[in-house]
């Protein structure tokens, strides 16, 4: 199955051989090609080169064509403030009645953007080129600003009082934003995008009641449109939007994507009820930006354990920070592709580091080597260690069985891992033979395996 097909299957909430992997590369692509974020977001060639570089470095199953929630707002008259190492941000709101300089417009003054407005032309030209180059290999996401976040861009924080004081005006604004979303989706689909993702982080600021009234009718129409075009859709939210997940599912996207503020297991339970796939949620700042490669493997592993392989897309919680260390993202790729030992041996500078494996055949005991990240911080590693301890203690093997945890945070453990031929974490090895790779066995089964190993050595 190709990477693209794997992602498509995962988005359709089907069982896949492994979780799909989609690093959300936004302004980070600028760093990959050695330029500042402002130049990146304004230049077609940079947009193309950045995504192609991300594809080469990170071996994903999918990528966003562009992660910029200001395209529509800019085309509609919002002034933007650009940054050296961040996405641009909206600086003015044309519909703000209290801004006598840059605001004061009405909806009648605004027109649905066309290809000739703002940066639409360079974005869609870049999209076409990216789709032509790698669109057969991976799934490509056209990201649109969700209707509520777009409404906030246009009106500013006055929207929160307008929802209460003048709800009919808010409905008119949301309808307009729905039409902008649909038109932008149409352009991305025409350019070759496989998936349309409506990114609506500001919905985390409103209640489920307000979501149901002011967001759901319009978001639903957007996803309906995407479905009619034969494409897949995703509904992204950042921030603490746990209370709105169920309402988001009712809008009928194919997928929901979240950040670290919402527990992944909670989203999994809700999404599975609605037969919707889900994705997330590696921590952006603590892990991806400031963590080490093994921290990233740890966090991603925890996500994979919770997410499983049915309808799950492993992803960062949102677009990765500009300065995210490349080796951190590569670390996650290595986990996804089952190449941790290769990655860690490259990263660890193992010259001069020694680890001597025991002479398993001649030892007067059975030795269980458990290769982990660190059972004190990695959930699946912890479960595996607990199973080993439980199997050994319940078997009453006395001193005929020894178990050792090898934490690959330590270089000696990486050498041990390589020598044992282990390529994934966590793994149980019994007397030098790999037994369980990333699967936590039943305690009784493991106890039986240990007994067999003892019998093979005439120790039982």
């Amino acid at each position, binding site marked *: 199955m190709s990477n693209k097909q794997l992602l498509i299957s995962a988005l359709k909430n089907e069982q896949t051989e492994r979780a799909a992997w989609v690093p959300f590369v936004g302004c980070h692509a600028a760093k990959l090609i050695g330029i500042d974020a402002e130049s990146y977001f304004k230049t077609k060639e940079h947009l193309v080169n950045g995504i192609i570089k991300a594809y080469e470095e990170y071996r994903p199953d999918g990528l966003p064509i562009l992660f910029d929630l200001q395209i529509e707002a800019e085309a509609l008259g919002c002034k933007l*403030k650009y940054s050296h190492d961040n996405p641009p*941000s909206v600086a003015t709101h044309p519909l703000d009645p209290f801004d006598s300089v840059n605001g004061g417009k009405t909806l009648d003054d605004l027109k649905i953007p066309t290809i000739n407005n703002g940066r639409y032309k360079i974005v869609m030209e870049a999209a076409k080129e990216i789709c032509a180059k790698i669109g057969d290999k991976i799934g490509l996401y056209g990201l649109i600003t969700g209707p509520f976040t777009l409404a906030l*861009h246009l009106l500013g924080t006055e929207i*929160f009082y307008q929802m209460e004081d003048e709800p009919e005006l808010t409905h008119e604004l949301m309808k307009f934003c729905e039409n902008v979303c649909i038109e932008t989706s149409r352009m991305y689909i025409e350019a070759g995008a496989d998936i349309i993702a409506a*990114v609506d982080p*500001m919905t985390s600021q409103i209640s489920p009641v307000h979501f149901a009234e002011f967001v759901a009718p319009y978001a639903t129409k957007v996803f309906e449109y995407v479905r009619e075009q034969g494409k897949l859709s995703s509904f992204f939210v950042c*921030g603490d939007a746990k209370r709105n997940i169920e309402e988001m599912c009712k809008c009928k996207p194919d997928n929901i994507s979240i950040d670290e503020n919402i527990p992944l297991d909670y989203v999994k339970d809700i999404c599975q009820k609605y037969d919707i796939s889900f994705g997330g949620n590696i921590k952006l700042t603590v892990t991806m930006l400031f963590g080490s490669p093994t921290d990233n493997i740890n966090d991603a592993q925890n996500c994979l354990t919770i997410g499983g392989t049915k309808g799950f897309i492993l992803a960062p919680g949102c677009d990765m920070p500009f300065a995210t260390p490349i080796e951190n993202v590569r670390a996650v790729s290595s986990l996804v592709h089952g190449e941790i030992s290769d990655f860690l041996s490259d990263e660890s500078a193992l010259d001069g580091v020694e680890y001597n494996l025991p002479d398993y055949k001649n030892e007067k005991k059975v030795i269980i080597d458990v290769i982990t990240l660190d059972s004190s911080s990695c959930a699946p590693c912890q479960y595996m260690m607990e199973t080993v301890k439980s199997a050994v203690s319940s078997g009453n093997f006395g001193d005929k069985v020894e178990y050792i945890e090898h934490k690959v945070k330590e270089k000696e453990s990486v050498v041990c891992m390589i020598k044992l031929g282990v390529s994934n974490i966590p793994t149980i090895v019994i007397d030098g033979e790999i037994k369980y790779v990333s699967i936590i066995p039943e305690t009784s089964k493991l106890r039986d395996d240990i007994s067999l190993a003892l019998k093979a050595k005439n120790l039982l």
Partner: protein
Amino acid sequence: MKVQLITLANPCTACLITENLLKEVFEKTQISLKARGVENIEFETVTLNHPQEIYNVEGLEVEKLPSVIIGGEQVTAGSLIHRRKLEQFIDNYIIP
């Protein structure tokens, strides 16, 4: 009395939108307070370079950014606040 906006350098897209909206709210609030003759309120934006610096911020209890702190007391954690609500908080602080 100090009103602080605590932000993190390298925010994600969503946090950046929230942060900028909060800065606008601060600007509007300052204008409104000045028009009402309310003085001696200092508005400050504090940008943290690393999440660990959270522990150095007095009054920051819920570790979600961006956050607003009024007189050493946290009033928002990762969420927006409207100008009217912020003024109400400030009024409650200066007129107990």
